[in-house]
C-alpha cells in the first residue's frame, strides 16, 4: 500500500490554555478528496491552521504525517515546500504588496526549497496567465495589491489560483464556499476539480453540504468538539443537511 498523503494521529492542540483539538485521527490516501463538516466553532479552522503550522497553537499530543514525514517540527514555509497548501477561510489583505510580486516570491521560494531552479519571467507569466484564465482572475486583479479590495468571491478565486500555481500534494480548503454566490461557487469548484488528478489529495472543510454537490468527496467526516465523530461516504453529507449536527452534541464529551 502506498503511503497516505496525510495521516493525523491523535492530534491534540490548544490555544491560550484552551484545548480545541481533542484527538483528531484522519487518513487521506493519495488522490482522495475528504470533506470535513461541522458546525461553527467546532475547531475546523483550528485544524487547518495547526496543519499549516500557525504559531499561536500548541500541539500537546499526536502526530501529523505528510507523505509519511512528520511535519510538526517544520516551519510553515517548510510545510508549504513539502506540499501542503491551505486555502484560507479569510484570505489576508496585504496593502503595498503587489499580487504578482507575491506569487513569484512564493513559487520561487518553494522551487528553491525543493532544489529546483527559479522560473524565468516569461515562464512565470505564462503559468500565471494559464492559472488565472481558468479561475477568471484577470490581469486587472493581478495588478492590485494582494487581496486588497477583492470581493469575497475574488479572494476565494485567487486562493484557488495560488493552489493551481503551487501544485501542492495536499490542499486544505477552509470554507472556500463561504461568501460565494452560485456563479462564483461554480467557477471555484471547477477550478478545484481541475486540480483533482488522481494523485493530489484534498481536505475540504465546510459547514454546508452545498459545496459537496460541486466538489464531490470520496469520504465525509463529521467534526464535533475538536474531533472526528463519524465518517461515511458522500451521503453522510446529505443526512447531515437534513438532520443537523444535534445528534453529535455531547457525543464527543
Amino acid at each position: 500500500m502506498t503511503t497516505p498523503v496525510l495521516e493525523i494521529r491523535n492530534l491534540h492542540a490548544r490555544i491560550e490554555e484552551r484545548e480545541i483539538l481533542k484527538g483528531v485521527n484522519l487518513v487521506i490516501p493519495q488522490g482522495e478528496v475528504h470533506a470535513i463538516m461541522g458546525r461553527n466553532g467546532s475547531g475546523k479552522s483550528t485544524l487547518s491552521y495547526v496543519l499549516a503550522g500557525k504559531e499561536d497553537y500548541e500541539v500537546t499530543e499526536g502526530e501529523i504525517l505528510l507523505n509519511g514525514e512528520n511535519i510538526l517540527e517544520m516551519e510553515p514555509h517548510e510545510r508549504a515546500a513539502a506540499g501542503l497548501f491551505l486555502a484560507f477561510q479569510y484570505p489576508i489583505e496585504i496593502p503595498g504588496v503587489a499580487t504578482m510580486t507575491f506569487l513569484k516570491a512564493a513559487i520561487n521560494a518553494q522551487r528553491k526549497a525543493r532544489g529546483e531552479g527559479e522560473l524565468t519571467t516569461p515562464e512565470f507569466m505564462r503559468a500565471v496567465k494559464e492559472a488565472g484564465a481558468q479561475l477568471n482572475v484577470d490581469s486587472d486583479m493581478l495588478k492590485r495589491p494582494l487581496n486588497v479590495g477583492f470581493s469575497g468571491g475574488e479572494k476565494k478565486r485567487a486562493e484557488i489560483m495560488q493552489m493551481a500555481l503551487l501544485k501542492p500534494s495536499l490542499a486544505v480548503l477552509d470554507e472556500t464556499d463561504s461568501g460565494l454566490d452560485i456563479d462564483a461557487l461554480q467557477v471555484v469548484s471547477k477550478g478545484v476539480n481541475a486540480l483533482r488528478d488522481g494523485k493530489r489529495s484534498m481536505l475540504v472543510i465546510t459547514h454546508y453540504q452545498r459545496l459537496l454537490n460541486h466538489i464531490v468527496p470520496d469520504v465525509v467526516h463529521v467534526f464535533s468538539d475538536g474531533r472526528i465523530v463519524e465518517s461515511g461516504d458522500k451521503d453522510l453529507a446529505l443526512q447531515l443537511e437534513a438532520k443537523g449536527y444535534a445528534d453529535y452534541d455531547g457525543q464527543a464529551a
Partner: protein
Amino acid sequence: MRQTFPVRLGAAEESLIAQLKAAGADQAAERVTVAGLPTRRVEAYHYTDLKTLLRAIPPLAQAANEASGTALRVPGAYALSIVNGAVLNAATAPEGVKVGKTHGGVLTNRDDVIVSVSNALATETLSLDLKGAIEQVVQIDHRIEGEAGHVADATKIFVADDSSVVVLETFSGSDAAHVGNHATYLALGKNAVVTHVTIDLSGRATSHFATNEYHLADGAQLRTLVIHAGAGLARTHLFPKMEGEGAHADVTGLNLVSDGQHSDITMETQHAVPYTSSQPLFKSITRGRSKSVVQGKLIVARDAQKTDAKFMHQGLMLSDEAEILSKPELEIYADDVVCGHGSTCGKLDEDSLFYLLSRGIPKAEAETILVRGFIAELIDPIEDEALNEALQGIVDGWLLGN
C-alpha cells in the same frame, strides 16, 4: 515670554559662537550666546534636544583633497557635487538646466538655530535654473570628506512655469563626527511639477541637518521624499508654502533608524491662499534602541479657504526598545477647510506574516516583503525607474543591516 537669565554654554555652543563671530554673523552669535542650543523646552525641538544630542561642533571643514564618490549612483542622472561646501564643476548640463554659483544663505530668516547658522555660514551657493520638461534626474551629491568638519552648504533652485523635473539630493562622506547643515530653497513656478528626493546616507558618526524651503505658485505640484538612513543624528526641517491657487504638495518622508540612531523629520506647511492642498505622509521604521521623531504642523491662513490637508504618520516597530514619537499640530485661521491628522504605530502584522509563510516564503524574505509593502506608498510614486530602484536598494540594504 523669553527667559532672561543666561544659559550655561557647552563646548558645542562655544565653538559655534566663535565660528559665527569669525564669519561676521554677530546677530546669530548673540542669539546662540543668549539662548544656547535649543533644548526640549523649545517646542520645535521638544523630542530632539540639541543641547544634549550635539556635544561638539567640529571646526569648519577645509577644502577636500579627496572625495569618495557618490554614495548613490542613479543611472542616467545628471550629477553635480558639493564637497565640503564647495560646488564642483560638473559635466555639461542637459538642456533646460542652468548651473550657477552665488554667495550667501538661501533660507528665509526665522527663529531657528539651524536656519540662522545656515544663513550665516553658507558661503558658496549652488544655483539651478530649470526650465522645460527635464527627463534626466538632476542629482546634487553632497559630501563631507576628511576629518570631522562643520559644513554649511546651500542650494537655490528655480523651476520655471510649466516645467517638470526630478531633483535628487544625496548626503554622504567620510565616517567622522561631521556636522552638516544643508539648506535648499526650491521655488516652483506656475504649474511646475517637481519631485524632490533627499537621502541621508552619511556615516554613523555624523550629525546631519537639512532645511528645505518650498514655494509653490498657482497649480504647482510638489512631491518630496526625505529618507534618513545614515547619520547617527539626523533632522530635516521642511517648510512648504502654498502660495498659489491649485498648488498641491505630497510631503513625504521616511525615517529608517537602527540601534543608537535618532532621526527627526519636522514639517511646517503653510497654506497661504485659498484652494490649495497638501498630503503629508511620513513613515518610521525602527529597530534596536533607536528613536524616530515626526512632527507635522499645518498652518492655514485666514483667507486660505477650501484648504485640504491631512498629516499622517505611520510607525513600524521592528524591536521593542525603539521609540516612535509623533506630534501633529493644526493652526487653522480659516473656517471652510478640511484638515486633519492621524498616526498609527505597530509591529509587522502576524496574520500577514503567516499568510506569506504558508505560501512557502521563508521568514526573513516574508518580513522584507511586508516592510517593502509598508513603504510602497512612498516609493511607488517615484516614477523614474532607475531612481525608484535605487531607493528600493537603500531600503533593502537597510533591512539587511547595512
